[in-house]
């Protein structure tokens, strides 16, 4: 089966699988399974090394903590190394890989998720700080065949090239329009006490925490402007 998936030329075999009701496996699933088996293969060695090393046997155990997260509507309870960021909890423990690890220092915005209705950098928040919080990732905004309007607009306007920053861009854009609607001003707002306007000048300032190395900014702006009902 692996051969079939890995070899894109064996389309006939794939069709056979469909007909026979065989399980179809996505590339992402395959990678997840592969990573898990790689871990299993290296574990016994690591355990042996620890048992025979006198210094390792006196090492204090890594502090762990329990946390419950509601991610895209489903509640997950995890026991995590306290150092685990929200981003790593999502990606490495829940296999929710939409949020991306770019800089891991809050500079690029690829890890942007929406927590309790607000966009944040999930790389700069510990998972344990998010006990009971409601987390929405790109996977929770829309699904293939039922895209969120912002996702559809990014596709329509070609708002990406490599796509790595896109989940963060879309989560950020959706929450950003909510911030304008909630009346939160920005550095680009001329009148501090007036309701902020949905203009491209506002969008550009408010989206400055999301970097796109491919430079798809003008297309991203067109997508955001369409959803906001304004002109790019």
């Amino acid at each position, binding site marked *: 089966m692996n051969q079939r998936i890995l070899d894109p030329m064996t389309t006939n075999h794939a069709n056979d699988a469909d007909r026979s009701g065989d399980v179809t496996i996505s590339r992402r699933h395959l990678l997840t399974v592969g990573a898990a088996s790689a871990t299993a293969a290296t574990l016994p060695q690591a355990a042996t090394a620890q048992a025979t090393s006198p210094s390792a046997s006196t090492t204090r155990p890594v502090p762990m903590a329990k946390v419950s997260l509601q991610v895209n509507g489903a509640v997950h309870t995890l026991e995590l190394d*306290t150092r685990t960021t929200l981003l790593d909890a999502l990606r490495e423990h829940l296999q929710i890989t939409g949020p991306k690890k770019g800089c891991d220092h809050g500079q690029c915005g690829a890890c942007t998720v929406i927590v309790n209705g607000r966009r944040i*950098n999930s790389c*700069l928040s510990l998972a344990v700080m998010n006990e009971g919080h409601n987390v929405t990732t790109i996977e929770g905004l829309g699904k293939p065949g039922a895209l969120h309007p912002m996702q559809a607009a990014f596709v329509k306007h070609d708002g990406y090239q490599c796509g790595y920053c896109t989940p963060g861009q879309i989560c950020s854009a959706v929450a950003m329009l909510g911030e304008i609607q909630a009346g939160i*001003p920005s550095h680009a707002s001329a009148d501090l006490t007036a309701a902020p306007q949905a203009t491209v000048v506002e969008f550009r300032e408010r989206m400055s925490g999301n970097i796109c190395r491919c430079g798809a900014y003008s297309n991203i702006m067109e997508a955001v402007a369409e959803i906001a009902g304004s002109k790019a």
Partner: protein
Amino acid sequence: MKTFTYERARSPSEAATAAVRVPGAKFIAGGTNLLDLMKLEIEQPTHLIDVNGLVLDKIEPTQEGGLRLGALVRNTDLAADMHVRRDYGVLSRALLAGASGQLRNAATTAGNLLQRTRCPYFYDTNQPCNKRQPGSGCSAIGGFSRSHAVVGASDACIATHPSDMAVAMRVLDATVETVAPTGTTRRIPIADFHRLPGNTPNIETTLQPGELITAVTLPRPVGGTHIYHKVRDRASYAFALVSVAAIVQRDGSGRVALGGVAHKPWRVEAAEAQLPRGALAVTKQLLDGAKPTPQNEFKLSLVERTLGAALTQAKG
């Protein structure tokens, strides 16, 4: 990142007590600066006290006619508060000129005050830095110093304070409210809160061990035109090379504080008497005794011009 144990505090005084009970403990609120530094092992707390559950997230009027800003009010909420926008516009403007939308949603009032410098040598653990490792030396002196301090620095450190919010707090004469591990509370004028580097640049504030910020209070509004001008290398999402927080009255009098030029928000009250005479006169007194490096002496004229632009804007 080094390992650490973790607890959620249930009251401000309990948090302060825990901070002195466990050696190497630190408070965590937004975490946007602390976690960044922990990943680089510049900060290595052994125990984190999560204060996010404390009810310190309110903005309330004070008896004196001012505002009390809870320590946990997020930067976005503080900037968007209608009282702040109307009566303390310089504070909204400063907050909105800093960081990104995502960071402002997480960062808190107290955490913003306690931000650490963005000096590249402080961030580079392969280089000497008196702030990160006392006694190791200062790599910025004689190094790449374009972004560094021009006033109030020492032979031990020429780092700047990175906060925009704190510059506005300084021009507004804010007061920092704290609780100590003993349970006693005190009020620290913002002017006395941040320290100059001297020989101990690793000690950045006058907070005592375990002392927790609970609120920042603003005095009664002073009126006037509120301006925050920030000059930086990008139009958005960058730290200031120079920033000017100004409150200018109709008669030309007013207040001025600077960001990006010193180890703390920089204000010289005596210089403000020169405001009716214009930016050059104010700048001369504000930056009296400045010791720029060849790489950052441009900041002296940049301060004058940025202040000049602010004063022109204030005249409408």
